């Protein structure tokens, strides 16, 4: 059960994968080279909403090097499936290539295949498409209004679903008797993911066997195979192999099945030659699933002591023009249940309208629903502190859920039962590291001299490793949420681990090897981690929702338990001792009380395969498979503090200091956790200050290049101060919780609260994200008038 020997667990071991990445030896999808390779380019809609009158590919087909042009007319395959259903949801058909109509800028209309990528691009430019432009709508709330342009005849008012959680009557009662009500409309703006490696795929079809091999930038190759084989291409899963080699970031955007990999697979089969497509950055902006995009009205009720008594939330979630693979899940079950945060809130009611608009589909983006909930909660709590004239730290302390670390979960009014938590120490530590009291004094002194410092807090909850599968199924999941692991011991004692998790930057080759090497008492060099290939690993669910350590890691631990159990029986047999009398330590089984009588790991492994002398009836070999289905999510938490300075003359914000104290349970590799926290903070700061996927009212994307869409840059960020408290999760054998998304979830509200705090002398109580200089300047200028 527990880790037997911890030589490596908790150590900041350098990532084993990094030497190949930093020396340019990584093998990404675009590095795949096959004989006879051809290249695809897509003809995409320039219109947010239009009828396709005619597609004329004659000129394109005549260009040198162009092999074929296919449109939705030729490519008759199933639509892209949606993997999560909500009650009464209306799911529009999402064609691989547009059928008669286009509904967002960038929607694929045709695929051109050519001998070179240049020729393919020339061909795509030469395809003439006649459109009849239709009015479009980009805003989720406006799409709901009477008279708004309709995307689908069969989906009235563009509403995909209306979803609620919580007890409306109880929430209404709380507001009726509240001493104070704090209301705040807020926008959680659209973000565009921008992994460093653009999405890419290579498809190769073998006519002799009928086997289709797809290399694709995927966070979950088996999910890709299942959805594509069973729902789109209608081929047996045995005839399709999906390989995701090294993947350069995803942030969620590489979970989903997209038009391009389906079209490329179909084209490869039809043409009888391998086809490669690698997204240009502009295509990534247009067609990778976007994130966030909520328009919300929130109100919070308080009693006379400043205790929260109720929360009501109404959100219009913009889902884009079609439902991406897990689109309905994000603004429902990954959003509403987070609304209790780290606070004891007796009554919560949340309703969400899932809306279709003429924009790129929206799905999970780092945090996926949880940043939206956390931003809402942390912003309104801060807003309340101002209204109640309380220090924001004090208001949070008053409302924290009391510590629960004995394995008894805390039940919120919005479905979740938190596994373990102790929230006050993280806040105390963060305030200490930030020098909170001193910072407040500097702020007061600065204001006298026209220097505007702001201090922002964020105390957050995160939910990792969505589980268990049966509950997910009852809530609409089209997939289980367990994970697979397989451990294969080789005769000389080295170990290959096959995991259903799939790293796209998380460092599994290091962390999983640390766990395995520790538990077996062997060097890390004896452990190989294999992932990302459906022909090698058992069916697995992949990496998202910060689930790899807590779910994928636990599956591996279960395998190790089985391996060690069999090893113990072999060792006992060889030592002629009772199994109960054996200790396993430093890679050897020894007889308790006579440490000289022992069998090393390697001897036992070899005997398992020689099978010359193993217990009667025992099968030879030493390997185990496990499918681990957790009983619950894990719930990391923490407290972040941001200190900013605002130049009120220009509205420019400078982030001066950032403190993050996270509790992610037990930590396998602190360097890797720090790396994820650092990256996450940068991404969250990006949302607070810079990033915005801007659509014009009619659906034209205005921020479609790196010249327009402001990604976080190193020179806009300070050196972070990070620390941790450790509250192990009681629900998995490693005691881990998850660290992949905490930074993104916590930092956006911390920075936003800091900026609004800086503007307090001007009476500014709220501004919507991102907090651009112009918005701040306008607010300050309005206050001065």
């Amino acid at each position, binding site marked *: 059960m527990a880790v037997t020997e911890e030589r490596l667990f908790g150590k900041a071991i350098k990532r084993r994968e990094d030497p190949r990445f930093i020396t340019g030896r990584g093998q990404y999808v675009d590095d795949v080279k096959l004989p006879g390779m051809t290249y695809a380019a897509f003809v995409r809609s320039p219109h947010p909403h239009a009828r396709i009158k005619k597609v004329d590919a004659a000129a394109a087909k005549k260009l040198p090097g162009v092999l074929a042009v296919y449109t939705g007319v030729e490519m008759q395959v199933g639509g892209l499936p949606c993997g999560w259903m909500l009650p009464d949801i209306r799911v529009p058909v999402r064609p691989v290539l547009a059928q008669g109509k286009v509904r967002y800028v960038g929607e694929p209309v045709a695929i051109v295949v050519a001998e070179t990528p240049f020729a393919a691009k*020339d061909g795509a*430019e030469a395809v003439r498409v006649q459109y009849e432009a239709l009015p479009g709508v980009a805003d989720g709330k406006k799409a709901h209004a009477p008279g708004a342009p309709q995307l689908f005849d069969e989906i009235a008012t563009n509403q995909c679903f209306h979803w609620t959680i919580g007890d409306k009557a109880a929430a209404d009662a709380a507001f009726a008797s509240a001493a104070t009500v704090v209301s705040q409309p807020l926008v959680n703006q659209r973000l565009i993911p921008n992994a460093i490696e653009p999405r890419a795929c290579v498809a190769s079809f073998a006519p002799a066997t009928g086997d289709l091999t797809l290399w694709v930038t995927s966070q979950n190759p088996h999910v890709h195979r299942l959805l594509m084989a069973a729902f789109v291409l209608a081929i047996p899963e045995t005839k399709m192999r999906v390989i995701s080699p090294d993947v350069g970031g995803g942030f969620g955007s590489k979970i989903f099945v997209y038009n391009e990999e389906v079209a490329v697979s179909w084209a490869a089969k039809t043409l009888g030659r391998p086809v490669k497509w690698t997204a240009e950055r502009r295509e990534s902006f247009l067609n990778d699933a976007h994130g966030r995009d909520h328009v919300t009205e929130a109100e919070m009720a308080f009693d006379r002591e400043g205790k929260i008594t109720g929360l009501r939330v109404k959100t219009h979630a913009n889902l884009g023009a079609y439902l991406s693979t897990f689109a309905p899940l994000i603004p429902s079950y990954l959003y509403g249940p987070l609304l209790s945060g780290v606070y004891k809130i007796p009554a919560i009611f949340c309703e969400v309208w899932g809306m279709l608009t003429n924009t790129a589909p929206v799905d999970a983006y780092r945090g996926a629903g949880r940043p939206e909930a956390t931003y809402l909660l942390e912003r309104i709590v801060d807003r309340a502190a101002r209204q109640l004239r309380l220090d924001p730290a004090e208001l949070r302390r008053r409302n924290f859920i009391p510590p629960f670390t004995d394995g008894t979960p805390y039940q919120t009014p919005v479905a979740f039962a938190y596994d373990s938590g102790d929230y006050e120490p993280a806040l105390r530590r963060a305030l200490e590291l930030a020098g909170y009291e001193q910072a407040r004094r500097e702020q007061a002194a600065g204001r006298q001299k026209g220097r505007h410092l702001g201090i922002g807090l964020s105390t957050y909850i995160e939910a990792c490793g969505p589980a268990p599968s049966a509950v997910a199924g009852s809530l609409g999941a089209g997939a289980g949420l367990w994970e697979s692991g397989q451990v294969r011991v080789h005769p000389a004692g080295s170990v290959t681990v096959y995991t259903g998790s799939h790293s796209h930057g998380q460092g599994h080759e290091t962390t999983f090897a640390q766990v395995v090497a520790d538990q077996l008492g062997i060097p890390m060099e004896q452990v190989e981690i294999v992932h990302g290939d459906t022909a090698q690993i058992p069916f697995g669910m992949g990496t998202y929702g910060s689930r790899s350590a807590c779910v994928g890691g636990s599956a591996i631990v279960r395998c190790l338990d089985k391996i060690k159990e069999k090893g113990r029986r072999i060792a006992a047999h060889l030592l002629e001792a009772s199994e109960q009398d054996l200790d396993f330590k430093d890679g050897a089984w020894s007889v308790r009380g006579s440490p000289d009588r022992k069998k090393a790991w390697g001897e036992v492994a070899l005997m398992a395969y020689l099978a010359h002398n193993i217990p009667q009836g025992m099968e030879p070999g030493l390997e185990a498979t496990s499918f681990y289905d957790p009983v619950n999510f894990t719930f990391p938490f923490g407290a972040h503090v941001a200190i900013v300075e605002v130049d009120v003359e220009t509205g420019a914000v400078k982030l001066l200091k950032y403190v993050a104290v996270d509790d992610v349970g037990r930590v396998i590799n602190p360097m890797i956790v720090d790396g994820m926290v650092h990256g996450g903070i940068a991404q969250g700061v990006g949302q607070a200050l810079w990033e915005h996927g801007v659509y014009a009212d009619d659906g034209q994307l205005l921020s479609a*290049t790196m010249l327009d869409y402001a990604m976080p840059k190193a020179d806009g960020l300070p050196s972070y101060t990070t620390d941790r408290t450790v509250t192990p999760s009681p629900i998995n054998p490693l005691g881990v919780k998850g660290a992949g998304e905490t930074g993104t979830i916590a930092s956006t509200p911390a920075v936003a609260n800091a900026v609004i705090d800086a503007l307090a002398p001007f009476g500014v109580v709220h501004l919507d994200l991102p907090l651009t200089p*112009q918005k701040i300047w*306008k607010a300050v200028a309005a206050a001065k008038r």
Partner: protein
Amino acid sequence: MYPAAFEYHAPTSVKDALRLLGKLKDDAKLLAGGHSLIPMMKLRLAQPGHLIDLKKVKGLSGIKEEKGALVIGAMTTHWEIEASKTVKAKVPVLAEVAGIIGDPAVRNKGTLGGSVAHADPAADWPAAMLALGAEMVCEGPKGKRTVKVDDWFVGLMTTAVKGNEILTAVRVPAWPAGSGAAYMKFPHPASRFAVVGVCAAVTLDKQGVCTRAGVAVTGAGTKAVRAKGVEAALTGKTLDAAAIEAAAQKAAQGVDVQADLQGSVEYKAHLCRVFAKRAITEAVKRAGG
């Protein structure tokens, strides 16, 4: 990512480059670093049939002093200017401008001539050229001619260079003792181009009275322009905070301020005034005022 097909030419002399240009005319673009042209070609916004790379042309690169001015070859990179001891000694503001263009990769490849010939409305160099009173040296089939910077920037990405000419050098006068100059910009959060950039240069006499001022604004409008109202308001004055503030108020006059995602006309005009004030204040300080 994948530009349309083009022919690549790499002449080694200005003469050969001009001959090619004369032959290929509008179907050719001059490549002078490529940090604007190549991305445009990759987005297929520009599809020239021919690229004439000036990288191997002799004599187009380098910085030398000549009669109280710096003569900077058109193909001199931003980094070479940023790092040049001569520049730092004679016209230090040029090193300052160069040092905040884009990022190191851009500065290592991009060139002064490429930038002022491309005339991006948000580029940094045009403000400095206008404020300092630079001259552009062009070479064509009929020989050399010099264009004063005030006549150079004609409109959006348009300059006075003729279709059969190449910008070969930029001549920047060194201002006399008692002068100071500064460039301040509000960078675009994504591109790092200037949302607004202001270059200010002043000469003060022994009494601290401003005898000459050059102030120019880039970023806000369709082309960089001199803020002549500001210059007039500075000249003849003792430049205390109030005088600078008053002069800076005229910074947006004559700028055809364009609204975009970064700001409204009102906001950008405000930034012109703020950055004029800041640049002038720093220039005065550097002038010893």
